[in-house]
């Protein structure tokens, strides 16, 4: 974890050019160290503070005092002695490191950045850059940190946030600089869609299409706006056009198949969903929709599709739905025992839904 890195062992060796520490100050330093060993931070702070008074030119004394405050998570109190330590020892790695963390913890991201950069603390540096609006730099440094700690949830979280922030910054730039381009309208439409402002989203997509009708993805996105509003006939028309524009796009084929399925056009839906499956195999949603499309006309094919969903999904809600669909097929065929077993699986996966 990032925070755990705060508690590094500090180098206590005097830094180059630093004045010699008088014996009484050294005694206070030792008393502080002993108190810290016994986790008596208040006593340690008192001792370190006396050491700084006895040896005001000692960077180590200020560094130890700052570190003791850090141990108490009193970052505000830690900052002044750490800054003083750096004035006395400008190249002190632990002082840069601790001050960078203290400043970041207090929300002074811009101030923290040079200190964290100096010591190559990529994780904390990335976080500070994210908070300072430098999303692109943040992504670079967080990715570096993840090389060392690939399973760190904090790093993954901040990398995700940085990605979103970069996307947002790019979008803002696009919208403010090129609002009347096809991409500008598309970006605006996406914003409206997220905000559930569907009429505005449709208008923006239509303007984008008017400017660049050849742009891949526009019809797919506009079709999804219509699909959200259950306007399946219009969605079908757009998905069909997208599928024609991008015959190799599995998603376009899936969306078209789903729109056909929602309208009860089972045969056409099955054909399109099979095509999507051939373009991109083992997509659970595609297979599930294919199963539904074939449940009445080709129950054996539907069974295969649902079984594959169960294999792929392993206990997810979609696997539960596939069990439910299988039970429906077998119930219809009079295979009541088999249907009962599948219903048991369904109940096991989705007990709250099945048993109100």
């Amino acid at each position, binding site marked *: 974890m990032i925070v755990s890195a705060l508690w590094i062992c500090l180098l206590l060796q005097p830094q180059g050019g630093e004045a010699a520490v008088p014996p009484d100050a050294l005694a206070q330093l030792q008393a502080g160290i002993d108190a810290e060993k016994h986790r008596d931070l208040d006593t340690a702070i008192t001792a370190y503070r006396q050491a700084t008074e006895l040896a005001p030119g000692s960077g180590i004394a200020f560094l130890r005092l700052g570190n003791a405050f850090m141990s108490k998570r009193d970052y505000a109190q830690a900052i002044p002695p750490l800054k003083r330590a750096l004035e006395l020892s400008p190249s002190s790695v632990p002082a840069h490191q601790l001050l960078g963390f203290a400043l970041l913890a207090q929300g002074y991201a811009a101030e923290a950045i040079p200190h964290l950069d100096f010591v190559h603390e990529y994780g904390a540096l990335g976080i500070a850059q994210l908070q300072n609006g430098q999303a692109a730099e943040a992504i670079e440094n967080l990715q570096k940190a993840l090389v060392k700690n690939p399973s760190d949830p904090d790093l993954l979280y901040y990398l995700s946030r940085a990605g979103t922030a970069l996307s947002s910054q790019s979008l803002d730039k696009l919208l403010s600089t090129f609002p009347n381009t096809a991409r500008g309208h598309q970006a605006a439409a996406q914003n409206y869609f997220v905000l559930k402002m569907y009429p505005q989203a449709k208008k923006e997509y239509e303007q984008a299409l008017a400017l660049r009708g050849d742009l891949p993805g526009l019809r797919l996105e506009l079709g999804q706006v219509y699909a959200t509003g259950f306007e399946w006939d219009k969605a079908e028309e757009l998905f069909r056009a997208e599928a024609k524009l991008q015959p190799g796009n599995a998603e376009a084929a899936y969306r078209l198949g789903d729109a056909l399925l929602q*309208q*009860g056009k*089972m045969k056409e839906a099955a054909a399109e969903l099979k095509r999507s499956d051939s373009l991109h195999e083992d997509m659970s949603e595609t297979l599930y929709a294919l199963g539904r499309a074939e449940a009445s006309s080709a129950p054996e094919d539907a069974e295969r599709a649902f079984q594959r969903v169960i294999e792929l999904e392993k206990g997810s809600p979609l696997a539960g739905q596939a069990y439910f669909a299988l039970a429906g097929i077998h*119930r*219809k065929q009079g295979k009541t025992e088999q249907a009962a077993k599948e*219903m048991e699986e369904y109940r096991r996966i989705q007990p709250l839904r*099945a048993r109100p």
Partner: protein
Amino acid sequence: MRCRTPLSMQRIRLLSARMATASVLSLVCTFTLLGQEVPPKSEPVFQVTPLHGVDFTLRNSPTSRKYLIETMSGGVALLDYNNDGLLDIFLVNAGRMRDPMINPFRFDRHEPAYWNRLYRQNKDGSFADVTEQAGLGNAGDTNYGMGVAVGDYDNDGYPDIYVTNFGKNILYHNNGDGTFTDVTAKAGVAAGGWSVSAGFFDYDNDGKLDLFVTRYLDWSIEKSKTCGNEQAPMYCPPGEFPAVANILYHNRGDGTFEDVSVPSGIAAKKGHGLGVAFADYDGDGYTDIFVANDVTNQFLFHNNGNGTFTETALDAGAALTNDGKMLSGMGVAFQDYDNDGLPDVLVTQLPHQPYVVYHNEGHGAFSAQELESGFGALSGKVSGWGVGLEDFDNDGWKDAFVAQGHVFDNVESYDSSLSYREPPLLAMNRNGHFERGDAGSNVPVAGRGAAFGDLNNDGWIDVVTTSLGDHPQFYLNRGGKAHWLTITLHGTKSNRDGFGARVQIGKQVRFATAAGSYLSSNDKRLHFGLGSVECVTVEIRWPSGIHQTVKGVKADQFIVVQESAQP
């Protein structure tokens, strides 16, 4: 097809407005049919028009507190209370709410503005408000009105009215002289709490109509909550309140009912019941029950034939969507839409999922076919309540009509793609696949109840819907050229209404009932569209077990079939 067999004239008589000029011989077909059973592609032409004399407003009194009952009311019944051959209209009103409600809680139902209303149809097609003279005015200040069920529970030949409320329900006995008497206390059917839809049916085939009442929530004004936020408060979802059990009343035959919810097994299942419909889905001769539940599994109560029921929806495949997800079941129709002789279920619900069709596969199994049936393209961003499966274009295939409108009166502030007020849905059945039809109006309303019947006896099914804070809507079917037949059952050994009978013409089957939809009660007459067919055989399996066949029945008439004495 050649119609040769003469009818038993003792058992059939004309009822229609045309009967004055129709000769008895015209009932019998003695000629070869010219047409085949190819349905004409005509669509019904609904004329949406006010009915002269009907001045009702459904006063639900919405408040900022979002008391849940405010958004759930609006029953309507089509019944011939005075047996003059013309359908009359009964409309349930809600009540006055204060904002906030103050204890003791009163809904001011004594004030005429909040009365339920009975409108008698005159011979000229106009209506007269006969509420007061019928004794149906004040429905009780502590009752907030919900729905209505109609059935002749005492087999005296006059339809009785049961009104459901948040509060105490009321059973009005039809005295046969144009008046009704509140017999709730004697009958023992007041229930209490929050009742929603109800229906009469004969679950034990003893010839006496029993009563089923759906119950929504364990809710009260004191327990009410407001969800959403301060700027946009909204009604809380049903999951915020405990589920409750439905009620089954057994008709003892002496004017009293016994609550058999526990011994029958009905009370064993708690849910959020809204709509209810009846049919014998497995052909065992006993009527089963389907309850549309809101955000709970749907309930299919299989009638075991021994006074008990087993809830089988999940294992029968009629509890969830095709994806195994719960639905917000509101209204329900339980009829055979694909002419395979087996009753199917259509459940309306809230947006983001289509209305669900549970297709009856036989051997007690259903399959959810919301997409195959075409409802995926017709619903999904609408909210359905009252619903009927009726043949509006008389082509021999039952179509669907749904009263629509969202639960939240401020839903637009949450989702701009949804609307509180919505036009109704007319879905035309094209060989088992539903396609959008023209309901005659795109005017959006907060639709709730819906009742179906032939208001003007022209052989074409009309619709009455209710909407919150508004007048009822009347969809008068102006018809076309296709043929039809409308049958009134007269049970003798079976219950007088013939509820529970299975009536078949060709491949078409109807299950005799006035129940279904949401909060509402339909014309009890059984209507069949015949397309180009001019002469048919009617097969009836009565609840008594008697099978009766009436051959050579000419199209385009109203007939009464009395239950034969012998099987």
